[in-house]
């Protein structure tokens, strides 16, 4: 009987692998879009590219969704709400960053209101290059994400739990306070 070293060091259990396969087949995307990338999602959802071929559908509430898309630039004001939204989502949850703005600031690299890199504040599973990426690229990204989930590589939500202090310090450094306070919530 051959015992491979990979099998001994495999931390994913058998049932976890089965679960990962099912998770990849039915992804619910949170219908929350920031910036310009939201323009590319209607063609991706509708008849020509048809996101539902991959088993993905839009979902209106964070507590039922699996995937959070940050589509484009992210201002500090929105980042507070995004952190709220991300922490409300149930595990397993996956986060995809669209376009150059989430990578390095893009054309807003010198703006006083827009953050420069997203993975400093929230764990990003997958980045998608382009400004803006076409629907074909988005479909490719979703297929890649599905494969990553099936193999068990999309572990952003585990990283967020393990390194929560690091993420929290970065959030507080840039935002001052994550708690949302405005005159409509007084």
């Amino acid at each position, binding site marked *: 009987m051959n015992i491979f070293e990979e099998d001994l060091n495999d931390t994913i259990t058998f049932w976890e692998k089965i679960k990962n396969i099912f998770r990849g087949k039915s992804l619910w995307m949170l219908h929350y879009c920031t910036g310009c990338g939201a323009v590319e999602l209607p063609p991706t959802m509708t008849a020509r590219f048809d996101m539902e071929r991959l088993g993905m559908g839009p979902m209106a509430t964070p507590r039922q969704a699996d995937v959070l898309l940050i589509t484009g630039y992210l201002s*500090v*004001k929105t980042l*507070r709400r995004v952190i709220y939204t991300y922490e409300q989502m149930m595990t397993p949850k996956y986060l995809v960053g669209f376009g150059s703005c989430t*990578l*390095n*600031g893009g054309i807003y*690299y*010198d*703006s*006083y*209101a*827009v*953050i*420069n*890199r997203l993975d*400093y504040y929230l764990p990003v599973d997958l980045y998608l290059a382009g400004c803006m990426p076409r629907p074909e690229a988005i479909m490719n990204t979703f297929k890649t994400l599905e494969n990553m989930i099936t193999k068990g590589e999309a572990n952003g939500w585990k990283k967020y739990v393990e390194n929560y202090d690091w993420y929290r310090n*970065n959030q507080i*450094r*840039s*935002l*001052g*306070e994550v708690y*949302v*306070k*405005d*005159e409509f919530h007084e």
Partner: protein
Amino acid sequence: MNFTNDTKELISILEKSLDIKDFTTPKKNEISIVVDQNNVPTILTYLKDKGWKQLSMITCVDWIEENKFELVYVLFNWTNGITFLVKTKIERENPEYISIIDIFPGARYYERDIHEFFGVKFEGNSDSEKPLFLELWDDKPPMRKDFDPLEYSKRKFPDRKYDVELSKNVVKEVIKEGGINERT
């Protein structure tokens, strides 16, 4: 200037009574006047009576070399479609001005906006000190010309570091493989 007789009369009245000098028409159907600080509420009230009932916006221009802020009140008349710009200049250090919310109540939010982005205080507007767009802002007002957004962005939002040499080598390799035609 293809204005109607009413508008011509109005312009002449303004010229005679308040001795306004700078009448310009930046665009078609748009009149711009530069007035003294103290005359602004009078002129706005007069124009509101004459049919310029809508305050489209208040905006502010930073003339840093003259050391002045310029407030621009944009009024619109729905009966003849003429836009009126009323401009006035105030000091840049400790800028303060009179609020016009008793003439146009909608000015409340524009004044909050200007207080937030330029630091102009409006007397008589109780809400003008409240933050409107920026949350927990801890620097000088961001729309002033002497505010450096790049420095603020570098201090607050860490950037991704790139290896410049590596990226140059990658480009050279791509050129060798024939992916990009090298420009000669």
